[in-house]
């Protein structure tokens, strides 16, 4: 395999062929080998991972994943898809139509349950001028909507879902992957970013209707560039809410980040030191907004411009 080759340089038919035996991609610090014969997986991967480099033969593969029917008969009768990690299925099967979102959820699961050399927070993270903005958020907080908007308005996407912190350096390691949009966010972002590439919506998932947005090419091209933590912002979408940042103590932010982390308790003392170090160089705020994305983008530009 040629080094530096990206997925977009391979014809879609060949992507389908390679997926049958295993297609290896690099995403952030990880290499993942994906196997599937399902057309929707091939289409989703070809669309959203177009700019990602292929892993070469010397790369260590971190995650071997497969998407396939749990039983051959399930290809035809009430079709289902199963996610396999190293040939083991960690989840129950889902309807076949959810195969591509399941790949994304499965990869999130792989990183959050396996990559314990990092402290991993359940938070979006973006970068500007070398500094990272960490945005933890409950479902419905508007985290992914804000992330999709910001990463197309001057901020670099490091991750929509997971903030990966290297305990040795304290720096944030990018893991740019497709941005997961749900329900109303799909229409909001389609209108706000007409040029964005989104996968066809998949309905009736556990999270409602889901669509994946292709990450900006720059985010993928620069996925080796780490960032220094600087802002921790807890967003909250309220339909009738005014746009406002409010101050938050470092201690409270620390506690909420610890609760939001996937593996804080697994890392123990190292997790505590990594998070206190992060909070000592970051400032924390809450951010309430009412859905006016232009004003939200302006507010975050002002935040980035603060000395």
């Amino acid at each position, binding site marked *: 395999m040629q080094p530096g080759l990206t997925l977009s340089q391979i014809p879609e038919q060949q992507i389908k062929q390679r997926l049958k035996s295993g297609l290896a991609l690099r995403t952030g610090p990880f290499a993942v080998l994906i196997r599937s014969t399902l057309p929707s997986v091939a289409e989703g991967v070809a669309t959203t991972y177009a700019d990602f480099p292929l892993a070469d033969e010397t790369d260590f593969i971190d995650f071997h994943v497969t998407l396939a029917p749990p039983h051959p008969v399930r290809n035809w009768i009430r079709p289902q898809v199963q996610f396999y990690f190293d040939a083991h299925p960690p989840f129950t099967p889902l309807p076949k139509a959810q195969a591509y979102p399941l790949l994304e959820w499965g990869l999130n699961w792989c990183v959050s349950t396996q990559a314990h050399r990092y402290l991993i927070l359940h938070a979006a993270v973006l970068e500007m001028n070398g500094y990272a903005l960490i945005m933890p958020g409950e479902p419905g907080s508007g985290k992914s909507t804000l992330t999709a908007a910001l990463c197309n308005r001057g901020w670099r996407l490091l991750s929509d879902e997971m903030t990966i912190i290297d305990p040795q350096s304290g720096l944030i390691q990018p893991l740019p992957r497709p941005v997961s949009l749900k329900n109303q966010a799909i229409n909001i972002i389609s209108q706000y970013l007409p040029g964005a590439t989104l996968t066809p919506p998949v309905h009736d998932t556990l999270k409602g209707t889901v669509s994946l947005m292709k990450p900006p090419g720059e985010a993928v091209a620069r996925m080796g560039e780490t960032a220094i933590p600087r802002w921790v912002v807890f967003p909250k979408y309220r339909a009738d809410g005014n746009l406002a940042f409010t101050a938050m*103590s*470092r*201690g*409270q932010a*620390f*506690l909420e980040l*610890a609760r939001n982390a996937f593996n*804080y*308790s697994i890392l*123990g*003392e190292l997790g*505590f*030191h990594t*998070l*206190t170090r992060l*909070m*000592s160089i970051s400032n924390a705020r809450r951010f309430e907004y009412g859905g006016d994305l232009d004003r939200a983008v302006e507010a975050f530009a002002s935040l980035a411009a603060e000395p």
Partner: protein
Amino acid sequence: MIPGANSLQTQLGTQLWQLVSPSLRHCWDGECAYYQLASGDTHLLSEEAVRLLELLQGRPRNVGELAASLSEMYSQPPEPSQMDLHVIALLDDLAKARLVECSPA
């Protein structure tokens, strides 16, 4: 009057408060992240509560001694009797969080 303070005060005559386990801490602006090594639990405590935990490491003999030491944090310390009650209330909160425990003297 702090509910239960009398009974706690009585207990303090015959029991010793001690730390449940060693810990790590990091403080910012009057608040401290406090990590208990044995359990892996993390708490957010006031700097005053953390100072009290530090004082317990010195094995104080009674609540009066703890209160006197804690008073040094304040430029205008409360009356000693008020401070005693304050320390008892703090110890009670820390006991509920399982950061300190009572043991027979």
